């Protein structure tokens, strides 16, 4: 039989207490928690269970694919449509660097963009129930997923860190 779980949500009005709460959580037995904020939360990465991102890798791979693809498109299509223009041979590598260069940037950027959307799971129209609208505006938030038996402990930890509001959502 699965243990009953609960979702605790805390709201913080300043970044200091939010960071403090995350610090306390990272040193506690809680492992399933999430942070929300209206600003880039890269600063708190060292306190979070998951770090880094595959976005740069995707962008690099996209850039390499774009470089090779556009260069090959230029070369191969010039071989098929081999009109001689200005007395030049249809395939000359140097001018094809320009399409390849643009292809590198285009595909790299598309890969980075798609990676952000896919990895962030930005597919829905409506935010989940754990989300508090104030998190996007002027507050920071933390949600903790824990066993029903640990609810009091989680609430106490968040309140002690300086949360303005703590509530059990589910």
């Amino acid at each position: 039989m699965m243990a009953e779980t609960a979702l605790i949500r805390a709201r913080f009005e300043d970044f200091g207490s939010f960071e403090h709460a995350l610090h306390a959580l990272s040193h506690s037995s809680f492992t399933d928690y999430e942070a929300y904020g209206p600003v880039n939360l890269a600063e708190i990465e060292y306190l979070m269970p998951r770090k880094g991102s595959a976005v740069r890798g995707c962008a690099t791979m996209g850039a390499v694919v774009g470089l090779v693809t556009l260069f090959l498109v230029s070369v191969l299509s010039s071989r098929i449509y081999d009109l001689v223009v200005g007395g030049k041979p249809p395939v000359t590598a140097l001018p094809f660097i320009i399409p390849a260069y643009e292809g590198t940037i285009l595909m790299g950027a598309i890969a980075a963009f798609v990676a952000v959307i896919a990895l962030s799971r930005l597919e829905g129209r409506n935010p989940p129930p754990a989300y508090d609208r104030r998190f996007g505006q002027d507050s920071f938030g933390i949600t903790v997923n824990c066993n029903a038996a640990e609810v009091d402990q989680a609430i106490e930890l968040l309140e002690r860190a300086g949360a303005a509001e703590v509530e059990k959502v589910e």
Partner: protein
Amino acid sequence: MFRGIDDAVLGSLGWPRPGYLLVLAVCALLVIVGAIGYAFQYFLGMGVSGLSIPVGWGTYITNFVFWVGIAHSGTLISAILYLFRTKWRNRINRSAEAMTIFAIMTAGLFPIIHLGRPWVFFWLLPYPNYRHLWPNFKSPLAWDVIAISTYFTVSLMFFYLGLIPDLAVARDRTKPGWRQKLYSILALGWTGRYEQWRHYARGYLALAALATPLVISVHSVVSWDFAMSLVRGWHTTIFAPYFVAGAIHSGLAMVIVLLILLRRPLGLERLLRVYEFEQMALLMIFTGSVVGYSYAVEAFLSWYSGDVFEQQFAAFRAFGSWAYSPLYWALIVFNVLLPMTFFVKSLRTDLRYLFVAAILVNVGMWLERFVIIVVSLGHDYLPSSWAAYAPRPVELLITGLSFGFFLILFLSFVKLFPSIAMGELKEQMLQQQEGK
């Protein structure tokens, strides 16, 4: 903590004031009149324009290069200044990015308008066909298409990615209705979760890093449309940096014009401070200096090369024509000398002066493209084929259409979406509070 920022920016999305509606009506009139002018050209043919041999490129290509140039400062402000961690960009980057998108859309009208038979424009597209038509990848015109479409796509993604967190705030603070539905769809369910921010921050940085060389490459490629040909006044290696600097110069001037125009009607005086305009003016001193240096080098090399054709052409452009020479000197005054007045603090902090100066810089940059294109084509190696060109009414109406079209898009944007990047401004505020 950040409520003031949200209130000010989202407050600007309210019902427009009469002045805004009046400007919108004038723009709509420009578009309608310009569309009538284009209808004349469409049904009667290109003969209604002033284009003829040898001046086959005239006002339309001038407008195309001008609008592509305008598009440049958006990504400069967004990408390059972001990589340099320049804080003043945070208040103007959204408007500059939107300006970039709309300026490229406006520029994109002109290759079609310039076509003699626009109804077969799809022949320009690369698809297997019996006419054996395929892009010639050795041609700067093919590079141009690839570069500008890449620039548009990357700028659009960069713009949209930056907009997502702010769209979520707008979604959360808007009353139920069509606006909230629109923001909900476009915000893609953004919640500001750490999981989202950690990918977002790296993606935004990656896009900025990719967009930076793109800014340099796109107008370089546009300049090669001219520099790769053997026309006098075009065939020079300085064209690429000269065009890039000119594009950024005109783009900055356009951002200044638009933001000064809009800060009061949108109630954004507190966020769009004189300081931001001052920084842009200082940047214009730099770009104006590069442009001035390019003009000087162009003239110097005409003489130093010992090429009699180049020497004759440079002399003709500066002194030889009652029609064109005043335009040449006007562009030097507007693009180089006028921005140098920004060295005086009292002038660069006076928004009325800055507004007028920025408009004149844009006039100067348009004239620069006009002089480059028209004077060179009309004054080639064969004196018997020399000719003069002046835009006909249809071309002027279509030029007006482009301004109306651009302004309608921009004015609609500032009333529909947050015109200041709230998320980045909040981050900057937080850093200030933490003493970073």
